[in-house]
């Protein structure tokens, strides 16, 4: 049996890592992720967690050490944010390319410059195509659960890919939330010890990371992509098992009050909490508005997304990231692409909000819905996207 308690979300993630019996943790301090690794360092120092904690000299080395540790057969974890994630960039592709099940928490934060320690999604969006399974948490409970699930998903031999759990910097990482901390016994039942598929072992010497000539590179990438796409099924399977064991449900796309909705707000991360209140208030006024939230960002849940938006008139896709000179937000672009070949598709309005820690308020969601309705009435089209709350 778990215990229900109030806990800072960063600490809850550390608890999840401890309960997952992580073996090697390599990390470097960066706000707003630092509480996670501080807590893990404390757990190791106090003997609560029997793991190797490597306080590396950079995030690049953090991911490199996790890659080395995973290749040696250890369950490996790191956490980072923004500049740290960007510094890892090269290593992210290698972790996935080498098919090593590293798990990472990212406390999403804006990319410099100007320097901002506050939250948005521009850090993880830059790593969209790095081959990692990418999950978004809305609540502290999500963050705790997803971290444990991440090890299980990553290490499944049908998957063998790294997983990142995204939590919004500060607005999720630093808040204290009530949540269920599961017992070691139950977590052990859900998450067996890591059985490496690829391992550095003197009794069976293999060469990991060879040179791939043009003759084979495409085939190896195809193999990797198929693993990522097909991880969808495994993720669903693991989520079902998790639900049966712990009673909490997870879906690739999660819907709120979408029945009979004409306009859907689409968002990822903790802002969904605010969006939900906005939806409730709009519903009270008789507006047919609902909310969809992307939990699984990679592999992209095309079918779930199509189902979620089927029959609605418009989707207001809100991104906490600006794709400079492009279509506005990466999640909006993806949604548009997913819909493009459908015969019946909703009008999709793009919005950028919440950059660099700017609050997204209930009123902002009212504006977003209002603008979407207006664009819809004008027959769609117009600007590709609008920035919310920007001062002229």
């Amino acid at each position: 049996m778990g215990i229900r308690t109030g806990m800072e979300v960063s600490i809850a993630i550390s608890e999840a890592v401890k309960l997952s019996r992580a073996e090697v943790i390599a990390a470097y301090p960066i706000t707003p992720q630092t509480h996670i690794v501080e807590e893990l360092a404390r757990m190791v120092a106090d003997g609560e967690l029997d793991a190797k904690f490597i306080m590396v000299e950079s995030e690049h080395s953090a991911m490199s050490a996790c890659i080395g540790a995973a290749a040696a057969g250890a369950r490996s974890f790191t956490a980072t944010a923004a500049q740290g994630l960007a510094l890892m960039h090269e290593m992210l592709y290698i972790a996935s390319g080498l098919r090593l099940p590293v798990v990472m928490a990212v406390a999403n934060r804006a990319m410099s410059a100007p320097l901002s320690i506050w939250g948005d999604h521009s850090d993880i969006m830059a790593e969209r195509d790095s081959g990692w399974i990418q999950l978004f948490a809305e609540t502290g409970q999500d963050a705790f659960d997803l971290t444990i699930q991440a090890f299980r998903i990553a290490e499944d031999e049908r998957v063998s890919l790294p997983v990142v759990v995204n939590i919004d910097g500060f607005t999720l990482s630093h808040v204290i939330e009530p949540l269920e901390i599961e017992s070691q016994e139950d977590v052990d039942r859900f998450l067996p010890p890591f059985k490496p598929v690829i391992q550095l072992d003197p009794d069976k010497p293999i060469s990991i990371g060879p040179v791939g000539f043009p003759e084979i590179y495409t085939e190896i990438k195809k193999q990797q992509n198929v693993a990522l796409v097909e991880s969808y099924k495994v993720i669903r399977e693991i989520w079902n098992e998790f639900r049966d064991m712990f009673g909490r449900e997870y879906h690739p796309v999660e819907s709120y009050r979408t029945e009979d909705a004409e306009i859907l707000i689409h968002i990822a991360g903790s802002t969904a909490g605010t969006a939900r209140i906005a939806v409730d208030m709009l519903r009270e006024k008789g507006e047919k508005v609902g909310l969809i939230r992307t939990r699984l960002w990679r592999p992209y849940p095309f079918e779930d997304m199509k189902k979620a938006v089927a029959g609605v008139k418009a989707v207001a896709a809100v991104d906490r990231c600006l794709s400079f000179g492009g279509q506005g937000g990466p999640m909006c672009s993806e949604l548009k692409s997913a819909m493009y070949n459908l015969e019946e598709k909703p009008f999709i309005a793009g919005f950028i909000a919440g950059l660099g820690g700017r609050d997204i308020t209930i009123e902002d969601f009212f504006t977003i819905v209002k603008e979407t309705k207006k664009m819809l009435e004008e027959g769609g089209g117009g600007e590709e996207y609008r920035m919310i709350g920007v001062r002229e």
Partner: protein
Amino acid sequence: MPQEKQHPGFIPRLISPRELFAEGNRGCQGCGEALAIRQILKAAGPDTIVCSATGCVEIISSPYPETAWRVPWIHVAFENAAAVASGVEAAIKILKKRGRYHDRKINIIALAGDGGTADIGLQALSGAFERRHDFTYICTDNEAYMNTGIQRSSATPYGASTTTSPAGKESIGQTTPKKDMPMIAAAHDIPYVATCCPSYPMDLLAKAAKAFNTEGPSYLHVLSPCPTGWRHESHLTVEIGRLAVETGVFPLYEIIEGRLKMNVVMEKRKPVKEYLKHQGRFRHLGPDEIEEIQRIVDEKYVRLLRRAEFDRSLER
């Protein structure tokens, strides 16, 4: 006197016949790095994990589906061999503790060239030394980026012509002296640092064995002549390595727990010209530049001798 000449009874039977760095690798004719690694792995034995940086060695040893490695091997990227080795070392420690790995001693090697060590990999190397991981870092130094086509690195010696420090009307080639990597390694107060060269196989094997048996980080700096990049004939690889030692260009020494010891002390060093003359990368140098190189070498050599003398005095 160089060691091999002191020991005419060279006894190969004392050296493992197992070739853990396989024949058929794609190293150039007379590759000094391939030779160094072949010798080092004889000292390491099969219970060894090699974490390679990107570079010549990685390219020549792992064109899929061919591998030269008969020990477990991982290549991740260019600048992070030491960080990868940190992870491997930590993993094996905890896995052993949890009974999930062989209980035997496993040598963990981080292997990189001079670029992967003195330039792009210096931060990861410094971090891993400071954290006191139990591993051996081996720099096979061929004094430039040979894999990409002979570009200068910070380990390229003064006066050498490379494709990015070309000798020309206005330039003598590399205008800065070679970065002193072994001393940078030693500055981390790690228990074992040594310079070596495959031209002195017994010395190299002994130092490699010491490094592997050292608890904590150890560093081997291996001068690895490169016929392609140094533009010398392939049969001269071993000879040039020997000349580097005999001229004092590359002194062989060890720093054990901070105490420096010269391994091959020459009463009379050969002039550096003897070393330079076989190599196309130095062919453009005039007497003034050669004199300057001699001055640099003399000064560094004397400094090493004095340091060795001083360190010896501490032992008394």
